């Protein structure tokens, strides 16, 4: 019994699951406290997960597809945060990199050559490149001049937001909140998905997300580059003294990190909307990505699962409102999960306390 408990506390994955369960538990209590039936919350979540409406027995696969579609930017922004975190950096700039990706994708969608495939491919590549530049600059500043990445990324988020507005207002057909419609060739919609999912917004972005997850896992766990980055993240001094090019590791990791967020921006721009948006505020996927990566322990699989959970919560918001549950409960649950993640160290302390008691007992017996 003791051994299993110890193993569970030491396993990061188990802690994440525990944290999520705790988040939902407290969320349930809160719903009950405000006088609503928590069962309705779970009904909504179940419907978003399986497409099955328990109340009327109807099945609509569209809900599954929307959950998946919502998950894509969460997962990608989680990868963005996670990649930098593994190298010991705290990339709060996912939002800015996302916005730049979105902006460039919109610009290329409206101005680029209207050739099938090539058009959206260019737009997506543009989003990836600008995201990696937006992140890479931070990496170079950090590696060469020791500028704190936390400060520079936060500032660049605002630069990105207002730069995006300037650029988008110049695009064809721009009003204060939207541009002209994108040409068909720029969209990444998938007619097959639309057919089988009752016209959901699920699009080809999901394939790009899956590729991104695989790339993340491959670079981090399998390559020489990832090895050097992990060493840098765990112990920068030892990595440096062992000849690992730390400056290069940091710059490249921020660029790759930015590429994931930029891709997220491109997918949202071309997949979820038919026109370009002139942003008046942030979409917050970049910020939510921080929580996603933390819950997912910055591993490829963990981040994917955590991103899916966040997508599920987001998709169930509308369903909850239909069942008289305030949708804000999903934000509360997200917040609780992040708070409980921070309690991870408390769990470790608890384990140490148990170890100590055990040892005292053993010594006492002699």
């Amino acid at each position, binding site marked *: 019994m003791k051994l299993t408990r110890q193993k569970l506390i030491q396993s990061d994955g188990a802690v994440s699951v525990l944290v999520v369960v705790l988040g939902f538990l407290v969320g349930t209590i809160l719903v009950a406290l405000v006088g609503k039936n928590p069962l309705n919350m779970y009904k909504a979540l179940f419907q978003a997960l399986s497409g099955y409406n328990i109340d009327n027995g109807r099945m609509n696969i569209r809900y599954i597809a929307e959950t998946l579609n919502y998950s894509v930017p969460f997962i990608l922004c989680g990868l963005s945060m996670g990649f930098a975190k593994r190298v010991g950096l705290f990339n709060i700039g996912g939002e800015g990199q996302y916005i730049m990706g979105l902006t460039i994708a919109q610009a290329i969608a409206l101005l680029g050559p209207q050739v099938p495939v090539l058009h959206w491919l260019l737009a997506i590549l543009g989003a990836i490149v600008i995201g990696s530049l937006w992140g890479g600059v931070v990496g170079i500043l950090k590696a060469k001049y020791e500028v704190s990445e936390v400060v520079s990324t936060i500032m660049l988020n605002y630069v990105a937001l207002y730069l995006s507005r300037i650029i988008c207002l110049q695009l064809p057909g721009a009003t204060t909140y939207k541009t002209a419609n994108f040409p068909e060739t720029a969209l990444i919609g998938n007619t097959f998905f639309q057919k089988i999912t009752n016209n959901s917004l699920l699009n080809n972005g999901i394939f790009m997300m899956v590729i991104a997850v695989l790339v993340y896992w491959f670079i981090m766990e*399998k*390559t*020489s*580059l990832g*090895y*050097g980055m*992990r*060493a840098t993240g*765990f*112990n920068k*001094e*030892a*990595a*440096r*003294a*062992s*000849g*690992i*090019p730390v400056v290069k590791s940091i710059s490249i990791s921020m660029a790759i990190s930015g590429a994931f967020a930029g891709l997220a921006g491109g997918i949202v721009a071309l997949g979820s909307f038919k026109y370009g948006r002139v942003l008046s505020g942030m979409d917050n996927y970049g910020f939510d990505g921080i929580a996603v990566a933390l819950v997912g322990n910055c591993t490829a699989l963990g981040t994917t699962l955590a991103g899916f959970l966040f997508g599920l919560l987001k998709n169930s918001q509308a369903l909850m409102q239909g069942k008289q549950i305030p949708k804000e409960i999903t934000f509360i649950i997200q917040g609780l999960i992040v708070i409980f993640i921070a309690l991870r160290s408390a769990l470790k302390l608890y384990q*140490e*306390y148990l*170890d*100590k008691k055990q*040892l*005292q007992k053993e*010594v*006492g017996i002699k």
Partner: protein
Amino acid sequence: MSEYAIEMRNITKTFPGVVANDMVTLQVKHQEIHALLGENGAGKSTLMSILFGSYSADSGSILLDGKPRDIKNPNVATSLGIGMVHQHFKLVQNYTVAENIVLGMEPTKGGMLDMKSARARVAKLSDQYALKVDPDALVEDITVGQQQRVEILKTLYRNANIIIFDEPTAVLTPQEVDELMDILKKLRSEGKTIVLITHKLKEIKEVADRCTVLRRGRCIGTVIVKDVSEQDLAEMMVGRAVKFEIEKPEQQVGKVMLSLQNLQVTDQSGIVRVKDLSLDVHEGEIVGIAGVDGNGQSELLGSIIGLLPLSGGAILLDGKSMGNLSIRERIQAGLGYIPEDRKKFGVVGEFSIAENTALKNYYLSPYRKRFGVLDFDAMKNEAENLIKQFDIRSAEGAQTNTGSLSGGNQQKVIVAREISLSPKVLVVAQPTRGLDVGAIEYIRKRIIAERGKGRAILLISFELDEIMNLCDRIATLSKGSIVAVNKQNEVTEYEIGLMMAGSKKEAVR
């Protein structure tokens, strides 16, 4: 009056994962110098921290002069007349000696600080106990030995009758050690009771009356020092027969492999730490750098490894200039490095042993395959070899988390990695710091074996014993410059001590 000034009975103290003290009993008589002997991690410091109130024991009792006492915190200990001279001094650098001594117990007159009477009392104490130190000097300007006297005066100023010294000689030159020994004897003759925590046998033989030996948290026994030999004490400490001297066969030296020429290194705040330093290391030779900590050793190391830029001079490895090479290029040119702070610079604690043994050549064949993919199985196989070859004790073989290994085994991981890369020059810093005797013997033997293979070895150590034991030639460093370079058999520890303090060898003779 009870026979014992201090009695600690059946003290048990556990930390997560370790029993630091297991039913330890310590009895210290009035007016004696009582040594507490044990290896690193034997539980000496824990026991004394309990006596001083920094830790509370899980069980057991403390009696002072026959009366049971509950020492909850260091303030209680101070009020009961216990003082402690810590290994790392707790002084305010830009305060004067007198200010440091009275800090926390300042005499006041009408609410105002009365420095005059404070100075007078400090001067009187320093006279009475022959602790020579200028009360008006700033602490940052005085030597380490003098700073230690300030710490002793601090305890005396607080009317300590029992003074605990935690490894007091670790930071001193041999001459300062001699002076400290005289101070200890003087304190005893003035009626103080002294507990001396140490692992140095020579010092115990010189000043201690009785000695209690701890091993792995247990009390092995208490002996009267003049009845036993150093060999006996060592065996009690380690639990088996110990060889002090390492056999070092004669060795032909070859050509110059590492050449430091007029090195000049400044630290991050722009202060010159290494001045015009020149030194050659030949194939098949161990050259030692002796010196007190803080005389430019870490900057010298940093400049050779490539962590710090040179501000002047040149470093040649096998005749080729290395000053502008990156750290990785230096490693490729044949530079090996066993760092002094193994957790910070030596290993990545979160990595497995296999990942750590490949830390310097993971990007090369046979580990690196096409498209930058790493062959982790090859790393594991090589690590398993090294684990056997270097007798690394681990729970799960090459997959073991390096951070979970003992210090000695972590050091073996580093030594295994560096030696397996067959460097032309091996730079070794404090290779045995914090290790137990078995690991120390092993690491030293390995270094000698590398010398046998014709490697050029530069050894930096603050332990003069280690330098004298291992080196063929010894360069003594003081304030960033080399005072003299001597053959090992042509110089004594005493002479090196004088040079460490800055005097030229000619002046010694």
